């Protein structure tokens, strides 16, 4: 059974922009010692680690952690660190939105056409009336839905990819995650390593505050990340199981 491989994780918190930020963000950035490289335009700062392919952006209205790696422990450690330091370093206590996004690739041995047929049969309506309306052949597709459960909202995207299409959809952060001296060389090697045919699973789990005065406490974010990580993993695995099941039960 093909399984999803994690390629990218993004965690983002949005907060109310305040002037105070500009007095705090440089000293806040200094506290994140795990990122050896940095860049600033004096309005925001980006902290980078080319070795582990991750970065942290501190802006006046948002803080974003991003990693182009499958290292789940690093994602857990660095996001926890960012949440823990936001309040003391930037005086951020209430949030407007937080989101946790994961991009998986499921490498497959079947042809692209076959994958399109499987996804079409499994994810789209096979109603005879609809089939009569539409042209005969589905050559390519994308499954995109916005979902919601009792706790969170989701943006879900599934799509078949050929090797050449992967960089466009996976959006590797070359600037922040690869050493500038050999960025093109490293990126070419990364692209060569992508599977010939794969399924992209893009899961964005988020929560946002509605209404003018509605806010989400920063403390909620820790619990949110933990459960989002689990949900994204389970959702990706279950989708794979559903889409590529090759045995029928008793």
């Amino acid at each position, binding site marked *: 059974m093909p399984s999803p491989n994690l390629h990218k994780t993004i965690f983002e918190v949005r907060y109310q922009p305040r002037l105070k930020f500009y007095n705090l963000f440089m000293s806040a950035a200094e506290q994140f010692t795990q990122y050896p490289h940095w860049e600033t335009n004096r309005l925001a700062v980006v902290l980078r680690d080319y070795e582990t392919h991750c970065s942290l952006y501190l802006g006046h209205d948002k803080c974003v952690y991003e990693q182009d790696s499958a290292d789940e422990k690093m994602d857990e450690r660095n996001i926890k660190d960012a949440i823990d330091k936001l309040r003391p370093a930037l005086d951020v206590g209430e949030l407007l939105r937080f989101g946790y996004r994961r991009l998986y690739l499921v490498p497959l041995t*079947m042809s692209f056409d*076959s994958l399109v*047929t*499987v996804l079409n049969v499994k994810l789209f309506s096979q109603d005879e009336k609809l089939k009569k309306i539409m042209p005969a052949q589905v050559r*390519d597709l994308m499954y995109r839905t916005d979902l919601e459960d009792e706790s969170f909202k989701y943006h879900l995207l599934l799509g078949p990819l050929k090797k050449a299409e992967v960089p466009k*959809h996976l959006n590797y952060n070359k600037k922040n995650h690869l050493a500038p001296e050999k960025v093109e060389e490293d990126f070419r090697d990364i692209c060569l390593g992508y599977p010939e045919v794969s399924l992209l699973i893009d899961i964005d789990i988020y929560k946002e505050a509605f209404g003018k005065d509605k806010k989400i406490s920063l403390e909620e974010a820790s619990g949110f990340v933990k459960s989002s990580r689990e949900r994204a993993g389970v959702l990706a695995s279950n989708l794979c199981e559903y889409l*590529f099941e*090759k045995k029928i039960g008793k």
Partner: protein
Amino acid sequence: MKQFDTGDIEKRREAESEIGLFFGPSGSGILPTEPGGMDAPQIPSQRSGVQFDLRTQSTATEIENDKLFAEISKFLIKTDVVDTPRINEEAERIIRIHYVEQLCEDLVHIIEKIGQPKAAVYVDSFFSISRAMRDVCPFDPYIEIVMALNDAMAFKNRWAVYTANQYELVRGLLKKFANQPVNSELAMRAVMELEDIGFDTTPFETEPSDEPEEPQS
């Protein structure tokens, strides 16, 4: 996944103009490039050197027009009908399982409602799922099993005659063969098993041959 590419339309337009056809301004119709200007079909009786022509001129024109129509039709058919691409065995297997699960679910309902009018609803669903399966994976030998079962059930509404026990055995058979690689030989064996269960998989009458029988020595 790819984005919409209007360039493809241009390519098609070029290809069509090469063979003397083009899309009208609205793209809604296919017309000869020069109405009436296309090489007029040569009528045999008008050709020099043809001395005997056993057709009237109007018949000959009609035949040539038919030929022209056939050529245009061939082109139109080629543009409108798209071949179903042969998909990998792996994908065939995945799709097979997807449909067989639904077929088996319908069989469970048919068994539950056996002898009741409600069973017809699930039989109808069974038939439409079988057809959908055949359309998506026409090359999977497993389809032979499904279609044989279809014939046995559909002919003269014989689905109403079979017993719950027979349907239960069929359900087991469908699952058993769905979980393994199936070639034509195995599919034939499965059809034989269907016959053993009591399903008449060749219910349709065949036309007797018109040819005279060979005399027996």
